């Protein structure tokens, strides 16, 4: 190691103190394509049989290499095992990513989802051979309806924003059915970003409603904005600041009086399940993120599941397919022409996706609900809120909370505590990685400056939270000392890779590997 060099820097790349560039048993992992050894294979395939008159491909036989890397089985196993060891998830440690609800996924859910009666069914099977699966969908729907007090639920939406889309399409269908198509959807500043995006995708113009100083919807501004052109109000509750919208009943009443419907984004339902009956709030539609609230693995793009509960006004327009109980057993209604559809007064607006919903997530969510029980679910919400408030209480004197507490399931801070330190929210978050924590959500929500949003969920013990609190407090004091600007700017120091160049990655992304020398046309 060269004189005067930071030992951490010395461990990177060409300055590595080791011959191989590896650090202890942390191996520098090449791309699998870079490990290619042509001719090597983990499987033995027999040579293609010669047939009279040449091959049977009519001149379409491949002339060059496919370009797949050649590796032996142990090489493949080691490669992916090592990659998995570089991963960080809820199974490796505390994951306080705000708004994402990274709660523990009980192994019981996995065990049940792997029962062959659930895992080996196919959506094209005759329904009489999957009666149990259909009953499971109906049982889950029943739990969701009972918990929310809502009369109907669309089970097929495949994720949260997809559930929003289902709810907004139902709202549009209901308004058009009464001959009152409207053009505007109102969305408060404290809503999830997907809310205005959904409204726009359904064809509505979006108007923003400001927040008041308490981080909640400005009810007077909402009332002023309501009018004969307003189709719906989309509100996230609890909102992205982790606050419960206390005026919800008044808000819904004002919307209904103006002929508008109310969509409530239920992505944060994990803070209020068993405590708030959604129907009592006057809501017409709300999606529930099964993958967040009801503990199924998520992140990295899926799989999610976003069933949408609907009021009486919207229930007839719920999308296909849906499950009904008939004398002959469980029946899946897939077409409007089905007597259980038209004949039963239902006018679905269409279909949200192929097949019948995210069945694997349904199994896990129902497993969670039934193993927790009604009282257990209520306690999960209570504990999630308690944990968030514990963080808030223990950090409020060193960080700067954006709004007065108490909070719901997440604690929101802004970057005022970093003012004049030269340390940014990003730097602060990166330094937390060195301390062994996945950082909280940063720079979201946009309504506060340099946001740090922490959601501990009910999963975490007080011991875990205390270690996190100690680390955050120490870092905050270090940042405020004014002596550590360089330390933060260079964080993380101890990770396999240091600060990644996000700007370059966004401006000049390298999206696919290319061979150093061009392979023959495949």
């Amino acid at each position: 190691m060269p004189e005067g060099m930071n030992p951490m820097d010395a461990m990177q790349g060409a300055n590595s103190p080791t011959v191989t560039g590896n650090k202890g048993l942390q191996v520098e992992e090449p791309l699998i394509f870079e490990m290619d050894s042509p001719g090597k294979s983990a499987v033995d395939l027999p040579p293609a049989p010669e047939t009279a008159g040449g091959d049977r491909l009519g001149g379409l036989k491949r002339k060059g290499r496919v370009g797949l890397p050649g590796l032996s089985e142990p090489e493949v196993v080691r490669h992916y095992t090592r990659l998995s060891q570089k991963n960080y998830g809820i199974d490796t440690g505390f994951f306080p990513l705000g708004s994402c609800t990274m709660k523990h996924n009980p192994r019981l859910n996995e065990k049940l989802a792997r029962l062959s009666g659930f895992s080996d069914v196919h959506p094209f099977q005759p329904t009489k051979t999957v009666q149990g699966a259909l009953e499971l969908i109906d049982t889950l729907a029943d739990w969701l309806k009972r918990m929310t007090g809502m009369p109907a639920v669309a089970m097929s939406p495949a994720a949260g924003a997809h559930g929003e889309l289902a709810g907004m399409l139902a709202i549009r269908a209901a308004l058009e059915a009464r001959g009152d198509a409207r053009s505007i959807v109102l969305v408060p500043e404290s809503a999830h970003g997907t809310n205005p995006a959904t409204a726009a995708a359904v064809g509505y113009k979006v108007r923003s409603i400001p927040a008041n100083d308490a981080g909640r919807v400005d009810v007077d501004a909402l009332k002023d904005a309501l009018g004969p052109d307003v189709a719906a109000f989309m509100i996230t509750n609890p909102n992205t600041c982790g606050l419960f919208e206390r005026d919800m009943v008044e808000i819904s009443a004002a919307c209904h009086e103006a002929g508008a419907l109310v969509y409530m984004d239920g992505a944060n339902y994990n803070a209020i399940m068993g405590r708030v009956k959604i129907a009592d709030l006057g809501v017409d539609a709300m999606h529930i993120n099964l993958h967040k609230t009801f503990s199924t693995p998520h992140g990295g793009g899926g799989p999610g599941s976003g069933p949408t509960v609907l009021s009486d006004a919207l229930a007839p327009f719920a999308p296909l397919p849906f499950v009904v109980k008939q004398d002959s057993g469980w029946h899946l209604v897939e077409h409007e022409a089905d007597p259980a559809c038209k004949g039963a007064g239902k006018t679905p607006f269409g279909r949200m996706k192929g097949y019948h919903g995210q069945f694997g997530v349904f199994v896990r969510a129902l497993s969670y609900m039934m193993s927790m029980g009604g009282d257990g679910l209520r306690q999960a919400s209570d504990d999630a809120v308690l944990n968030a408030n514990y963080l808030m209480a223990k950090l409020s004197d060193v960080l700067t909370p954006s709004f007065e507490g108490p909070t719901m399931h997440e604690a929101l801070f802004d970057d005022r505590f970093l003012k004049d330190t030269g340390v940014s929210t990003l730097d602060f978050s990166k330094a937390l990685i060195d301390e062994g924590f996945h950082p909280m959500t940063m720079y979201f929500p946009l309504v506060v400056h340099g946001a740090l949003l922490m959601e501990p969920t009910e999963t975490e013990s007080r011991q875990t939270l205390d270690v996190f609190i100690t680390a955050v407090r120490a870092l905050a004091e270090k940042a405020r000392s004014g002596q550590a600007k360089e330390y933060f700017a260079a964080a993380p120091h101890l990770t396999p890779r240091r600060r990644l160049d996000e700007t370059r990655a966004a401006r000049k992304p390298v999206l696919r590997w290319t061979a150093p020398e061009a392979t023959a046309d495949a």
Partner: protein
Amino acid sequence: MTMWFTKDHEWVRVEDGNTATVGITHYAQEQLGDVVFVELPEVGRSLAKGEEAAVVESVKAASEVYSPVAGEVVAFNKDLPDAPGTVNTSPENEGWFYQLKLDGDPDTSDLMDQAAYDDYVASL
């Protein structure tokens, strides 16, 4: 040539009474951080005052750019999509977004001049 500013940190420069150039301010680019993507309005599009005209995306956030004045788009900055960093290095000159042909005198009643905008930024 007069420059006006909005509360949302857009600037508009009225060149000769008939043409206006629009961009985002130095303060806006500073708040956004490194700009990585810019979406600009097409030539010929007619923009109302306050209408969403462009999108600017940074490593931190995506934001809409609202047209400070009404008019028809006559040009957009063709260099920006390939070099969005220009918004950071020269927000109020080379990093301009689009040009409008004005329909008469622009409505500047709710816009700020440089001094008023500087005071506004200082108050944030």
